[in-house]
């Protein structure tokens, strides 16, 4: 998929093919906007009741971008949208965490898929991405969270099993499942 779309870009082209094509810039920007919108209002509490553990589908836009247009575009879509947040709810901390979580899922997944653009490739990609993502998120928490809380590292490490692991597992699972559901119809729109 990644390949045949990037070739579509410059059929009938009248521009020198150096750097990013306007087509690529436009698509990337629009996917970033979609991801930003997801983070801004399509978010909802992932566990009914626990209101502050919000899930937002922004990572899915990034995953679709990564699968359809390659790891490069995917990574951009996993980073830029969260910069919009620097001055909203999350501040530096939330922004950093969100970027780590998304990038660590999207980059491996799209790299694998780029090598094997098949259903199996996609699935292995998502699995690899999930594992890397889980590790990255936990690591980031151990390193960064103490900067924001008086609690010592040990406490954070103590929270891995009861809090971090289940929550992030659920999040990653949802991202992968929804991406699978979303990609089929969208791929048709990508072709035409």
């Amino acid at each position, binding site marked *: 998929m990644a390949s045949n779309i990037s070739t579509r870009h410059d059929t*009938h*082209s*009248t*521009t*020198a093919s150096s750097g990013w094509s306007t087509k690529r810039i436009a698509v990337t920007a629009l996917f970033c906007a979609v991801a930003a919108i997801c983070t801004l209002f399509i978010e909802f509490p992932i566990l009914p009741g626990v209101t502050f553990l919000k899930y937002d589908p922004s990572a899915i836009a990034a995953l679709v971008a990564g699968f359809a247009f390659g790891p490069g575009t995917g990574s951009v879509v996993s980073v830029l949208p969260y910069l919009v947040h620097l001055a909203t709810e999350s501040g530096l901390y939330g922004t950093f965490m969100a970027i780590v979580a998304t990038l660590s899922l999207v980059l491996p997944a799209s790299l694998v898929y780029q090598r094997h653009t098949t259903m199996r490739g996609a699935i292995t990609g998502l699995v690899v991405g999930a594992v890397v993502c889980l590790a990255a998120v936990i690591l980031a928490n151990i390193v960064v969270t103490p900067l924001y809380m008086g609690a010592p590292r040990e406490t954070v490490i103590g929270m891995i099993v009861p809090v971090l692991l289940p929550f992030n597992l659920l999040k990653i699972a949802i991202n992968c499942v929804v991406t699978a559901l979303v990609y*089929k*119809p969208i791929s*048709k*729109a990508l*072709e*035409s």
Partner: protein
Amino acid sequence: MPGAGYTQPASADAMVSVASLSHVTLRYGDGPREVVALNDVTLSIAKGERLCVLGANGSGKSTLASVICGLLAPDEGTVSLLGREVFGANGVDIDGYRLARHEIGLVFQNPDDQIVTSIVEEDVAFGPENLGLAPDEIGVRVDRELRRVAMQDYARSDPSRLSGGQQQRVAIAGALAMEPRVLVLDEPGALLDVRGRRGIMRVMDTLHRDGVTIVHITHFVEEALAADRVVVMNHGHVMLEGTPEQVFSHGDDLGSLGLEMPFTARLSTTLRDRGLDVPWTCDDDVLAEALADTLGPKQARVDADGQAHEPQAAEPAPRTAIQVDRVSYTYHDTDGRNALDDVSFPVAQGASVAIVGQTGSGKSTLMRLICALEAPDQGRIVVNGIDTATRRNRRQLHGKVGYVMQHPERQLFAETVLDDVSYGPHNMGLAPEEVRRRCDHALALVGLVGKEDASPFQLSGGQQRLCAIAGILAMQPDTLVLDEPTAGLDPRGRAQLERILDDIHDHGVTIVRVTHSMNVAARAQQVLVLSQSRLLMQGAPQDVFCAANKQMLHDAGLGLPDALNWALRLGLSEEPLSMDALVDAVMHATRPTISKAPSGAKGVDVRGV
């Protein structure tokens, strides 16, 4: 040096044709899904001419525009832009294309996509910046062009807050700021209301006078009359070419090309068919004079009150389907400005209602409230006896009231057409076979049988629209609410959709629709006129569209149906609202003996849409 190309007297003088295509062919896709968008097109555009391109949806107009603008290189043929061959035997001439693009501007259908920054004046500066011009030069151009399109007062505002018409004018200013020698406009008015479209046409007139070559692509045949030359595309071919008069004289062929004749041309044709001795013409002045002679001195107008026509309201009214009662609504984040202000009206069961009003007047807001997507801030709305005040009630109405919103094709989401259409019925919790039955029925209604398993995203623009509408019809609502359903469709598509709606209406469905066309509104049984979020007028078409209201409608950015305008111009005593009624009126005025009294809105004429 980019931009330097603009003042090259040499090429400017030497050149008679700014763009010439010969035997150009362009294909999209490959293998089974190959589409020949341009098929052996030969076309030459003279310096300073105003060319208008007509054609059905999918006939290749936008592709042609892209080729003329140097955005697409064809597969075969030769293309010369501004006197330099940029595509030919030896392939694509990248530099040539670059220089050409600097001097050929493009404005297209959707203003949203053409505005690239969050501040108007900086958007206009975008092009000049790309040309690498000096800052002060950029400043000069930005001011000049914003003035030219009369947007200077909005220089600092946010484009995404402007109306479609204003956005489109900004887009034009952005193209002009690059001082193009050729300006290509691809359906610039397709998404605008009457006033917005008039604004664009005015800008084009001034540009033409200033010597800019203009290529204007449109679905509104009336707009073609202003052009020096008209080209009609069909399946990638240039079918007809010549002056507007010549092209529109091919009356019968136009239909098969998905077009129609301008109102004036149709009027003169029909009158001649009815044996009246008038010349065939597209020029309303000519026709008006000819008719003035045959009609003799204008009769004193009997002021049209009461007995001329009895409004539907007088008939024993069936039970009301929708009751809107003193409704006001304000969007939460807009500084307290009402989007709807104290609006009240009833809609009878099985009626067909047309809502007209210029952009921002509150039409879509009213639709959202009627469809129970939101409760009014003040007042109440009762649909099918259910008050939309509470969430539970609103939930009940979803599905019973079908909502076809602006650009419904933007809501398509499923993998196949069938999945998309069955989304609604499925959510209603119907049995699978019932769902399937309804989907088949709906698809049959809109003529998409056989497309069940195609992806909605791979249908043509017009088909996507129909698919989205089928998704609503499949829920078999007893009230159907449509928001400008024909926007962006070609005349054939519009006519088809009108037939579908008439059909549904005949099956007793209440139809409420927003439209920008007074001719369409005149065919409804009840007309609502919104102006600045208030209800200006309502009633039967004959009551709303009458000489007495002409000024008030004009002030609201609206007008009268063409037929009525003609009747007034000719000083007829009747006030016809459709082509047939107008013709009857004219015949009546000329030969009273065989007069048939016109019957208000009933003389329906789909071609008149």
